[in-house]
């Protein structure tokens, strides 16, 4: 479970308030979609959740462990697929995976078995000996997905994971996300692709200008809209999302 309580962040250099009093609860056994327009604060939130950025206010708990008090223990509880796959381009794929496995203290046998299985699933077996810099964006994204699962984390955090993936890999990823949640794990992912969120997510959170504008299930969103100014009926997530964000923009 991931819990964010009243998290705020203003960037020191630009003075932009990227996240403003955000509170979220991501329960176990749930696929949680994190939606928002460009610049809404999704990546900043994920960076705060994963300890890459320090919030000005608020706390983050990963499986009940406070990130600011026990950072290493909390970080061992999640695996991250970052928004940029361009990491360590001079390393070979197996060297990067070995590095991550060392960091998470995965035993020799476990790392070999898990990496071989995941590489097969994402059709990356033949590329394990290649330099990361020589791989396509999609391959690098697959490698980051594999790296995030080497230690079999309870919480899986993915920042725009579908971007750059071929249909086969996108399907494999969605399957893995479902399996992870079915085993009782948490999946928290940000996306721009509404169809994916609509089909995959048990719960959603929509963020705009750093503030949370909705959290709940798709049905909750439809109900909320029905009780609002306009009847939502069977509107798809995209229409609901656009209407909600537009309203928020007008209100602010």
């Amino acid at each position, binding site marked *: 479970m991931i819990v964010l309580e009243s998290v705020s962040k203003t960037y020191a250099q630009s003075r932009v308030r990227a996240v403003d009093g955000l509170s979220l609860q991501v329960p176990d056994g749930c696929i949680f979609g994190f939606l928002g327009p460009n610049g809404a604060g999704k990546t900043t939130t994920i960076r705060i959740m994963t300890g*890459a950025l320090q919030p000005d206010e608020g706390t983050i708990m990963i499986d009940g462990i406070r990130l600011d008090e026990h950072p290493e223990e909390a970080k061992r509880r999640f695996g991250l697929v970052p928004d940029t796959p361009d990491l360590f381009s001079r*390393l070979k794929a197996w060297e990067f995976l070995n590095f991550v496995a060392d960091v998470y203290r995965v035993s020799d046998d476990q790392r070999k078995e898990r990496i071989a299985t995941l*590489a097969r699933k994402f059709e990356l077996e*033949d590329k394990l*000996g290649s330099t990361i810099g020589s791989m396509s964006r999609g391959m690098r994204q697959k490698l980051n997905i594999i790296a995030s699962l080497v230690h079999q984390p309870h919480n899986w955090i993915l920042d725009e994971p579908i971007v750059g993936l071929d249909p086969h890999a996108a399907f494999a990823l969605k399957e893995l996300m479902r399996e992870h949640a079915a085993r009782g794990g948490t999946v928290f992912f940000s996306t721009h692709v509404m169809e994916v969120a609509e089909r995959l997510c048990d719960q959603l959170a929509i963020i705009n200008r750093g503030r949370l504008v909705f959290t709940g299930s798709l049905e909750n969103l439809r109900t909320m809209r029905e009780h609002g100014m306009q009847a939502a009926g069977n509107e798809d997530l995209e229409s609901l999302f656009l209407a909600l964000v537009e309203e928020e923009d007008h209100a602010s």
Partner: protein
Amino acid sequence: MRSPLVALIGLQLKATFAIRVPAGDEWKNPRIILKTFGWALLALLLFADFVFLFGSMDYALIEALAPLGMQSYMLLNAIATASVLVFVLTLLTSLSFFSAAPNELVFVTMPLAPRDLLLARMTSIYAVNAPFALFIVVVALVIYGLKMGAPFWFYPSMVLHAAAIPLLPLALSYLLLVPLLSGSRMLRNRNAILYIGGIIGMLVALGFNFYLQRMMAKIQDPSYLITLMSNPASIVQRVARFWPPAWLAVSSAVTRNPGISIAAALANLVMGAGACIVITLLFRKRYVRLLCEFSEGGGGKGLRTDVALARLRAKPLLLTMLQREVALMNREPQFFLNGPFIILLFPLLFAIMYLAQRESFGELATILERPGASGVAYLLAAGFGIFLGSSTSITCTSISRDAKSLTYLKSLPIPANILVLGKLLHGLLFGLLGIVVGTGGLAVVMHLRGTDLAAALILALLGILASTASGLLLDLLSPRLKWEHPVSALKQNKNSVIMILGMMGLLGAMGYLTTVLSLPKYGYAMLYGGFFAVVATGSLLTMLTQAARRLQRMEP
């Protein structure tokens, strides 16, 4: 509306000379004002340094040649120097721009003529190298003009020649490189280009250094100068006779007819520009094909899957971090050539200085053999090891070099102290190499034995520990986290300038102290070693207590 060619040239020039001047409200920020003036002052000092270097050489040369009535040979020397230097620089610049070919692929997708692509690239290379030719020739011109009272037409004529000097090398560079790179798959690789260009560049710098050192050492010897300038077999004479731009420039300089002088200058310009146009017409399509081929990537399959999987083995985290540091630094040519490679480069540079100025080194040896100072030769060995080991900029840029992956690294459960200790060990590893090459090498040359050798090694180790730890602390406190090109993280990082100049200053101060303090033989080692131990301990303690907090606050 500008033509596509003019627009492309404008863009290439802006990309090549990305000098940013503060605008508007930025002038109200004291930090920006200070930084801008600091850079301007640095540029001015650098310019003044080169004016002094070339100016003093030209002045000494014209003075030495005056009794023989051979003053114009000073101009001949400047033209030959500019021609050779610019030829090599142009070749290297043309080669290095191929390493950026993938970035230029976007232009290939635009409706731009292949001719325009090549012409725009050649223009930016000309813009990079023309200032060198102009500088060398203009400095010589001013000295010659003032000393000899040259007529007014002499100056524009020679400036036109200086402007023409880089044109023919530019055309020849592409005449050589386009077929060479087209024919070699191995060379059509960014890393290969960077390594070849980097190593050739350093060799050229060493050669040029040797030439300058030799010239300065022999400047007071008229017989040497006469041989150098007038001997038909000398490089200066050969360049003047066989290299058309130099031949035309020399003809222009010695004639008393303004018409002939200006006509020779124009002929020089037309010849160079014509050669560039011919090359553009000949190679435009092959050049564009090369840009595409450079972007093909094709990293290959590398290791077989079973071999790669067999290599997955657990290690202690500190060793993992050290291995990562070494791999990432040594595999990035920009980092390697400007970092660990320095340990091999500097001894070579000093060897050249020694060969060029043996006589001066002889004086140094005499000073060292002076009673009271002879016993402290071990300090020289220790100092050279410290100098080499601390000149790699490994630790003082290690956080900056990680800027692109810092966000990800911070999301991993790596204790901050382990992360910085991995970086410290990386610096120490190459520091030790510096000690082996520097202290060890000099110890062999100076026949250091027993306690002298032990004192040199211990002092060098303490010095390296101090410089490595304080460098890392500096980068931890003030890293450069915003950069586009890897070289900006290392070479254009203020921390590497502070550490290199700081260590040079410190070693210089210690050298001075050795000459003024009267201590027992190993008293100096105790004093300097104690200082290094205090700096190292202070830096390490501060680093280990501050690492987590500092890393947490970094926002790449």
